[in-house]
């Protein structure tokens, strides 16, 4: 991430030729380059080289024929996807779940971090932190098993509903309840873990600012609003841009474990539908095509929000 340089700064330094600058830099920072070499190799081998495999999105891949031997089919896989009767519903559901997750799930760790920051009693603070971190380490399958058991018509959720005068029902069969269950359990599981990075950013805020504010007569809430929040704003913006860059990556396994026919109308997302469509034939090409579509949309959103971030907040990822 970088902040925008002052205009005109670039004109000041005389530009040496690229080759010379590189070799000088290399000589100066030899060990830094060495340190980054394994990561570079890792990226090249596991991220860049496999990109060649994306070519199967334009083929009809058969494992026995290999990538080279499989026939070309042009945009057929993409047409199969876009022409599907359920395409718009899938897109709508994917965006809905993603945006609602961001709307409710993104601020939650920030709020927790801000609240934790205000706690003076370290023992209490640490207890709260530990308790909120713990759900993150529970396997998703276990959590979904719990949710399914609670949502049954004789389960915990129904019993609570009856206490409030409602009817017992199987909550996971109710399309109106799917999003709340999904998002609330997501927040419950991730809030502690995701707040760590904000807590870390909080430690970098100059304490003198708080002193100055207190002298000026600012209350705790005003201190939070004027000092703490702006202090972690760069972190928030970067994480937000990154989050938007994953907008179509909705939690596939979780939805797969929680959804069922009654909730298809709201819960069937691109990845679950492709899973069903592909499972019959091991349709690798189709999966690759949809994955490519996902990536293109994600990169688009990443670029858009990066630009917005740069323009309006002076903060951007690249």
């Amino acid at each position, binding site marked *: 991430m970088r902040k925008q340089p002052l205009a005109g700064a670039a004109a000041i330094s005389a530009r040496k030729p690229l080759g010379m600058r590189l070799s000088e830099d290399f000589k100066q920072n030899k060990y830094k380059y060495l340190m980054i070499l394994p990561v570079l190799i890792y990226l090249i081998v596991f991220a860049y080289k496999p990109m060649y495999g994306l070519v199967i999105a334009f083929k009809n891949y058969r494992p026995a024929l*290999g990538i080279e*031997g499989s026939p070309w089919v042009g945009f057929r896989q993409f047409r199969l996807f876009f*022409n599907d*009767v359920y395409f718009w519903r899938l897109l709508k559901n994917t965006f809905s779940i993603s945006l609602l997750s961001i709307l409710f799930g993104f601020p939650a760790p920030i709020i927790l971090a801000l609240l934790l920051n205000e706690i003076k009693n370290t023992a209490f603070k640490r207890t709260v932190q530990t308790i909120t971190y713990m759900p993150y380490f529970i396997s998703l399958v276990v959590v979904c098993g719990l949710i399914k058991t609670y949502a049954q*018509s004789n389960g915990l959720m129904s019993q609570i509903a009856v206490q409030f005068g409602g009817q017992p029902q*199987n909550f996971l069969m109710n399309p109106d309840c799917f999003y709340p269950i999904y998002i609330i359990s997501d927040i419950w599981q991730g809030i502690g873990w995701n707040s760590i990075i904000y807590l870390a950013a909080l430690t970098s805020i100059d304490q003198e600012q708080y002193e100055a504010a207190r002298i000026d007569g600012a209350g705790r809430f005003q201190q939070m609003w004027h000092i703490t929040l702006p202090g972690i704003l760069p972190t928030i913006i970067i994480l937000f841009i990154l989050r938007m860059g994953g907008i179509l990556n909705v939690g596939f396994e979780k939805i797969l474990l929680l959804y069922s*026919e009654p909730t298809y109308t709201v819960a069937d997302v691109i990845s679950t539908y492709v899973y069903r469509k592909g499972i019959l034939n091991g349709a690798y090409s189709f999966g690759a095509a949809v994955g490519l579509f996902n990536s293109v949309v994600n990169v688009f959103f990443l670029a858009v929000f990066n630009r917005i971030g740069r323009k309006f907040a002076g903060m951007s990822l690249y």
Partner: protein
Amino acid sequence: MRKRILATILTAALLFAAFSGCAKGNSPGTSAAPTGSAESGTGTASTFSGYPMKKEDVKLKWYVGSGYGLNSAYATADESPFHSGLEKQVGVDIEWSFPTAGTDEKQAFNVMLSSGDLPDIFFYYIMSDAQRYMDEKVIRDLSGSLEKNSPNYWAWIHTKPEYDRAVKTDAGQYYGYCFFREDGGWNDSYQGPLIREDWLKALSLKEPKTVSDWDAVLKAFKEKYNATFSSPAGRFKPSVFIAGAFGAYGNINSSYYVDKNNKIQLAQAQPEWKAYMQQMSKWWKEGLIDQDILTAEDSNVQTKALNGKTGFAYTSMGQVSNWEKDAKDAKNGAEWAGIEYPTGDDGTLSAVFGGYGIGNGMTVITTACTDDKLETAMRVLDYAYSKEGQLYWNFGKEGNSWEYNDKKEVEYLPLVTEDKDGLNNAIDKYGGATWQGPCIQLTRLLHLKNTETAIKANDTWFYKHQDVTSKWTVPSSVTYTTEESDKMDEYNSAIDTYVSEQATKFLTGEESLDSFDNFVSQLNSMGLPEVLKIRQAAYDRYLAR
């Protein structure tokens, strides 16, 4: 200086681009083997003189993608009594390979295929793709020498026309060794209705036989015990359930069946299914069906059975053994028993859960197997269908894991019955016929594996309705060409999703069955006629084999 650096960087970048083009996707069969898929060796005289063949110098590579794989107690095939024992029985050295524990089987299989290093023999669920693999020169055509090199197998597959059809491609080429149940499908009816006999006795009710009986019993159980009819979603949705009582052939998930004119139809598009759904939705509205039936797992239903929340259910004979054990441990007096599938009040019964007793996985010989090893490979696979081999594949070595009791029946020895991992686990250590494999599964195996209640339940479900257990099912060996597969891809998942969604809405009453005609016309506009045409063509080819 800088030109040199630039040049180096450019060259390196170009080289990298060139190397990334080096995918490992070479076509198999270029390594050792004969070209094409026709086998030779018809001229060579056979040196076979019984098992063991004493060909320890011949090494066969065998990949087991599922079914008779490695028991979790063993790390390698050498430790496994079944696998190493099989090598000794046939007298050949076999190098076994399995998918890495914990990986997805299907992925592991595809990785094995695309690695370019084919084993001599492999097993997986490739029936519907058999023609493609033949065209892609992965598997061998065994037609010329099957009768000579695998006489036991040859004799077995000619006992029934379905068996013979199942192991050929549409072009009539024999290509593999299939899994068969000895009894022609007894255990294919491993699911059915179950009821608590003690509750029936308490209410002085008889076992329900017709739909009206079911109605009465459901209402009585609800009134007296506040219990509902339950079933695990994974068993309830895709099976035919009790639709047979209405002349229908499917439940919630889309199902294709063979009608009385040998035509392939979609079960959910038939008027009989509408009548079936009307009854189901009525029961749903009256609160007689467990609301969780669309999402429950085996374990959820087991808990309900234990807590008395259900006394009337639909599940597998294996599950009912668990329920029995729970009831015994809890001493609650529950007596679970399998009952017959209901018929219509007029006696209609069109279909019950079942099949032909033919598996959908095939053990095949690949083009990587050289001609000189071909006969050995075929003899090794034929062993399972001989008298001695059947016993070995099912139970293990006589005198080691089993012996005959006084009634000349197979009985397990303490090595198996007192195994610390439990009986069911132990059976898999010494035998390979439990799930699927190139063998004949003997009914005795299932009798030894299951409790008496489970066996009686299966007996009821199969023998009482034997003539409607299978002839309506579409055989698993029906194959589709690449073009047909591609065409169906366009419609299949949309149709499947639409059917299961609508069926659910009909069941819960969210949508009235008055809109059934709209439902059917929507299906027709989604490409159902094309799909039926393709499936029909494939099925006709199957019949002509």
